[in-house]
């Protein structure tokens, strides 16, 4: 019995040390952070405070906020910090996971530092690359986009099994059977122009936007062959994406061309988020030594887009990556582990109720255990909350006239008349909700045009 009291005392001590996040989770903090993004509130005090308690999560959040505030240097500082933490976690993962699993079972996963997701690592480097481009530091931007590409490669390794399964299914599909049948009169096959390889199955496992924007960077950097390769990879992932096809063609003729273009990159809406889902098992039907048994698990919810699309002059933006799908697939991959951890957590806390009732019935033992379960029954809903629902692209010629970006209803979102005509430009618009948007214009500076 002394051991049981010891376990409880240790837990209470741990709970005290880890602060109230283990009771409340991070949902409220993250909701407040989102409000800060929507209000363009560039005060970093709260972020810096949170940074001490959960460094990775808030370094990522800080990076996105500073980027939105056009403070690119600060954004890079936060994201560099996040990248160092990712590295630390990756190298220490095997040792740490034992302690982390114990913490998750005994209390809940909120007691552990945020671990992050693959898609977040990729986007962290994409944003850093864009930040460096905004600072006209193409040398460091190149490093970041190379990191993006290596992270994409690692994402394919992470999803190796799923990609192989998807590929096998695809090979056995009716569509492939028709393709293999030389006498098939199917119209679909006549319309087929691209090559169907395993790569066309990738879009949700890796982020096509990350490959595309890396290609665009190398195009800006004058490395047309690398840009061409990356546009080609993107086109293979998305055989029906017309803008990518057009960019692929452009990169083939790039060294000869005299015309310059403006690309519109549109981050649309807010990505899926995790919310807590609770279920109460009727365990009191089987034993009267337990009040009840609850399990709380994270689950994900879709949120609304902002403007379904934008129009750059006459060009309508088209989707290049669906972040919701990417988030969902990564969540699904981790779900079995999350479920196991949740079940163990529930069993452990039920056992505590049972043991307390057996030994301290006169003090209301099971109720003490139940209070402990209730107070620590909080799902881990942490994630980088600055992701959009999807990414869209469009391109138009820069001809000296002002460019107009229209909302779907035909009204003007913004006008741009500051672009130089002798070099390419990126107009980067992030709109999380309707009537709120942030715009970044990236154009190679005259100094760096050498």
């Amino acid at each position, binding site marked *: *019995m002394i051991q049981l009291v010891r376990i409880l005392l240790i837990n209470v001590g741990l709970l005290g040390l880890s602060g109230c996040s283990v009771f409340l989770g991070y949902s409220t903090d993250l909701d407040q952070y989102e409000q800060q993004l929507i209000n363009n509130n560039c005060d970093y005090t709260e972020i810096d405070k949170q940074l001490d308690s959960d460094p990775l999560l808030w370094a990522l959040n800080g990076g996105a906020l500073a980027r939105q505030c056009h403070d690119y240097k600060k954004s890079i500082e936060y994201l560099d910090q996040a990248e160092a933490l990712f590295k630390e976690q990756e190298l220490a993962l*095997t*040792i740490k996971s*034992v302690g982390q699993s114990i913490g998750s079972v005994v209390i809940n996963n909120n007691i552990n530092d945020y671990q992050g997701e693959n898609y977040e690592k990729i986007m962290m480097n994409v944003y850093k690359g864009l930040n460096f481009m905004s600072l006209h530091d193409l040398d*460091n931007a*190149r490093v970041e986009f*190379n990191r993006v590409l290596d992270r994409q490669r690692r994402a394919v390794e992470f999803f190796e099994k799923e990609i192989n399964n998807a590929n096998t299914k695809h090979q056995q599909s009716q569509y492939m059977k028709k393709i293999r049948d030389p006498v098939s009169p199917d119209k679909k096959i006549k319309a087929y122009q691209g090559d169907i390889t395993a790569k066309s199955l990738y879009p949700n496992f890796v982020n096509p936007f990350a490959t595309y924007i890396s290609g665009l960077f190398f195009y800006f950097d004058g490395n047309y062959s690398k840009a061409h390769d990356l546009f080609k990879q993107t086109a293979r992932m998305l055989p029906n994406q017309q803008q990518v096809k057009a960019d692929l063609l452009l990169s083939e003729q790039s060294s000869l061309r005299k015309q310059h273009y403006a690309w519109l990159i549109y981050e649309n809406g807010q990505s899926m988020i995790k919310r807590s889902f609770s279920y109460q098992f009727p365990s009191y039907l089987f034993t009267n030594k337990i009040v009840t048994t609850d399990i709380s698990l994270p689950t994900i919810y879709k949120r609304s887009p902002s403007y379904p699309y934008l129009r750059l002059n006459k060009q309508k933006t088209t989707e290049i990556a669906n972040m919701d799908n990417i988030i969902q697939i990564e969540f699904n991959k981790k779900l079995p582990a999350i479920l196991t951890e949740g079940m163990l957590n529930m069993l452990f806390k039920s056992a505590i109720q049972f043991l307390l009732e*057996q030994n301290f019935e006169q003090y209301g033992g099971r109720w003490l255990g139940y209070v402990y379960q209730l107070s620590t029954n909080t799902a881990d809903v942490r994630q980088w909350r600055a992701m959009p629902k999807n990414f869209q692209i469009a391109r138009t010629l820069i001809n000296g006239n002002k460019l107009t970006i229209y909302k779907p209803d035909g009204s003007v979102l913004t006008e741009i008349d500051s672009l130089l005509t002798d070099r390419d430009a990126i107009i980067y618009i992030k709109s999380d909700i309707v009537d709120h948007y942030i715009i970044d214009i990236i154009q190679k500076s005259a100094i760096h045009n050498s």
Partner: protein
Amino acid sequence: MINLRKPFNKYISVIMLAVTLILAGCSSNVEYVTADNSDDAISLGLDSQDFEHAAQEALNSLLASNTLNKPGGGRYIVAIGKVVNDTTLRIDTDMLVKKIRIGMLQSGKAVITTAIAGNSKNVDDLIYDVRELRDNDEFKQDTIAGKGTLYAPDFSLTGKILQRISRTGKNKQLVEYYVQLTLTEIKSGLAYWENESTVRKLGSNKSTAW
């Protein structure tokens, strides 16, 4: 009453054993892919030792090529162009270039101009700052460099550092670096000398190479 002591101790033993096993399998095993595999304590990135190797190899090749042997004697003037870092590492390519510059100067076959360069970091601004003093009464005017005294370069040295990363086996990654350098005659635009040095490293695939 349940005796928790025994199972609790058992759990602790199991956990301790697991931790020991994990720790035992944790050495990072980063090693060069060379015949003797004699180097230890290295990273998957490019360090000063790698730059030293690459620069020395490039320099040996350059001097052996006789490109810098000026007919009739004398020294060529070389301008330092841009060395593009196309890797995932934030490296200072000047570290590499510096070693080659030193080697070229020491060979007695070339001098380096700092009046013009591909990267503004390699230009000595003072050359131009002093020339701006031409109408300044405080300076003895005949000590200020006159017009038409700067030498145009005969050659430019440019380069690129490339990186290829691939997983080998289940949990190892092979990181290869290619240090490519080109010496171009400015008058004709012809490349007179080129070299590629390779650095190959094998390490754990647990984390990124940078």
